[in-house]
């Protein structure tokens, strides 16, 4: 299990946000994306997940290996916590909801409608989905947003365990996470020098 990203360009609209991003990850690796606001962390993660159109470059990441978690939590407010996770278990064809809820301290919230959880509790439900989906490569956008110190530690450990047991994680963050063997990728270096624009209509002159 490994994948390789080669000279990938990330675009939003017609603007190239990042150019020539290259890295390689193998089993057990964890890559932390860093960089100031608006540099393109979310864009890169979306591109890897196949949720954004890809510019030049290649990525050998197999879509069927991905579990994605973005800025939004992808939970249904009308369903209870357990029903939310159960649904994802159904979609991914897995069967680990009970143990995952246990591990996340969600058991006591299991029958609460997800809508009236606190911000951090919602986030936890969103992250629990990654475990439920039982995929190899985790793409996580600022997973520790709105989590308190204890739960940040819990999530860090969860990512650690995932990588230890042969998974791969790519995540963005603004705070320092204590993950063993993590590589850090500073995205500022990939910013096109003069905000490049790959629009065909800019070629030539007329």
């Amino acid at each position, binding site marked *: 299990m490994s994948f390789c990203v080669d000279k990938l360009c990330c675009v939003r609209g017609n603007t190239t946000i990042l150019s020539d991003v290259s890295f390689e990850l193998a089993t057990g690796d964890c890559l932390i994306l860093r960089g100031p606001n608006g540099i393109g962390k979310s864009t890169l993660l979306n591109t890897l997940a*196949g949720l954004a159109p890809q510019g030049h470059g290649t990525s050998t990441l197999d879509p069927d290996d991905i579990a994605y978690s973005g800025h939004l939590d992808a939970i249904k407010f009308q369903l209870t916590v357990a029903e939310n996770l159960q*649904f994802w278990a159904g*979609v991914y064809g897995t069967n680990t909801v009970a143990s995952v809820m246990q591990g996340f301290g969600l058991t006591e919230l299991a029958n609460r409608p997800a809508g009236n959880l606190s911000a951090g509790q919602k986030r936890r439900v969103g992250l629990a989905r990654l475990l439920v989906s039982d995929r190899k490569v985790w793409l996580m956008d600022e997973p520790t947003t709105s989590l308190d110190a204890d739960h940040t530690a819990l999530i860090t450990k969860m990512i650690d365990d995932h990588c230890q047991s042969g998974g791969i994680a790519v995540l963005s963050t603004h705070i320092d996470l204590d993950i063993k063997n993590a590589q850090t990728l500073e995205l500022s270096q990939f910013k096109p020098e003069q905000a490049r624009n790959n629009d065909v209509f800019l070629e030539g002159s007329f």
Partner: protein
Amino acid sequence: MLALFLRDLKLAIRTGGGFGLALAFFLIVVMFVPFGVGSDLTLLARIAPGILWIGALLACLLSLDRIFQLDAEDGTLNVLATSPIPLSGVTVAKSMAHWVTTGLPLTIAAIPLGYLLNLPSIAYAWLFVSLFIGTPALSFIGAFGAAITVGIKRGGLLLSLLVLPLYIPTLIFGAVTVIKAVEGSNPMPSLMFLAGLTLLSVVIMPFASALALKANLS
């Protein structure tokens, strides 16, 4: 896919009743017609088939934006797009859930509402059959419209605008079936067309919707 279908049903029931509300809307549209055009029973009988079909169509239309918009807003659609279910499968599950929660109840409700509009008694069976066969097309076409407008915040009206012209053939063949039955001529040809239309929608719409969803992912 089954999980998605069941979850959509659950959400429809949970959110203040997906079933009940399309029905209620249908009831009210049908009720409004006499207020608007007067209570002359022969007049009502004449326009009844058309009004019933238009009412069902509008009731169906009103709940289309739920199909994808909610999932897009809370990020579920992004996750679904990276999940093992293909996007066309997502559309099929959601269209079917939509039909079960709106098309089917509307079909059943049309019978008593037909009475309110003084629909002639020979036409009830045809009304039922035409709606039963025609409403799946409405759901599958509607899902396509919903897929196209999913990126637009509260695109309800744009959605209607896109979908309504696509509904015209269904409406025509559906209404003509009932009108023919009322007039005593043979409603089978239009019913066959209607069935063909539904088949076509069920087959091609999921792929079109999947394409539209793909383009709309950010």
